[in-house]
């Protein structure tokens, strides 16, 4: 069961509408290293974790990623709110508008639809946790790219928060990997 909380995890502010920046940020909504992929990856992998610690970490981080997904949608929503057709065309979002109007569609910055091919669920806890650690680093790098693409300090504040969360998640996944590695070694019978 999941509950919805009628608030963002962290405030999302933008100084000015900026459709071009919205297009770039889309990649964290439905792109290869985005928050939707993160949530689906972790929440799908948890069923085959061998220990409560693995199940708990994936449940909690997967749930937090859904809150980040909502923050990203909020950034896109606020950056494109009230945009004129001219703004949309100049930002390169004309094709997005043709297909999805102002709908916030889970795709990447180029409008390529989200696919679960971006994630893996191996069932092998060691392989899965390694993927999760790599995924956090890729998301961290993506946020750094996005931060470099804007000079809006308000928007940057939200992006920096999300970047920082990836660093913390990487740390927690690393600790979980160490623990589960030890657990599995202790279970091995020769």
């Amino acid at each position, binding site marked *: 069961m999941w*509950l*919805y*909380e*009628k*608030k*963002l*995890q*962290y*405030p*999302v502010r933008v100084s000015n509408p900026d459709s071009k920046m919205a297009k770039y940020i889309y990649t964290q909504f439905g792109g290869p290293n985005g928050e939707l992929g993160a949530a689906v990856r972790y929440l799908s992998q948890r069923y085959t974790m061998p220990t409560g*610690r693995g199940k*708990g*970490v994936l449940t*909690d*981080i997967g749930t*937090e990623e859904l809150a980040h997904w*909502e923050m990203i*949608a*909020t950034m896109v*929503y*606020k950056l494109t709110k009230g945009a004129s057709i001219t703004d949309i065309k100049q930002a390169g979002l004309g094709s997005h508008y043709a297909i999805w109007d102002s709908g916030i569609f889970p795709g990447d910055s180029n409008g390529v639809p989200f696919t679960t091919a971006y994630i893996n669920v191996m069932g092998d806890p060691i392989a899965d946790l390694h993927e999760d650690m790599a995924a956090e680093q890729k998301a961290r790098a993506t946020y750094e790219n996005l931060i470099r693409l804007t000079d809006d300090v308000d928007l940057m504040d939200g992006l920096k928060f999300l970047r920082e969360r990836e660093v*913390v*998640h990487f740390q*927690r996944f690393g*600790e*979980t990997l160490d*623990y589960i590695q030890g657990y599995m070694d202790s279970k091995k019978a020769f």
Partner: protein
Amino acid sequence: MVKQNMNPLQTVQELEFALVELNLYLDTHPNDQNALAAFNDFASRYATARATYEAQYGPLANFGNSGPTASWTWIDEPWPWEI
């Protein structure tokens, strides 16, 4: 850490952030008694801050998790992305 003059939403978000951090930390350090004590301290302050917020702005959680309600304000705008 959490100042008195903040708006109720910010207070809830700050306390929740501390709890998210401590929760993830405790997931991988379940025997850390200091972290557990901090978690419990924040959790009780969080309950108070949520009640303060909800008295002013309506329920934070759906499906009955914000308790009984005199009128149905769950659907009231603004939604989080509109604030």
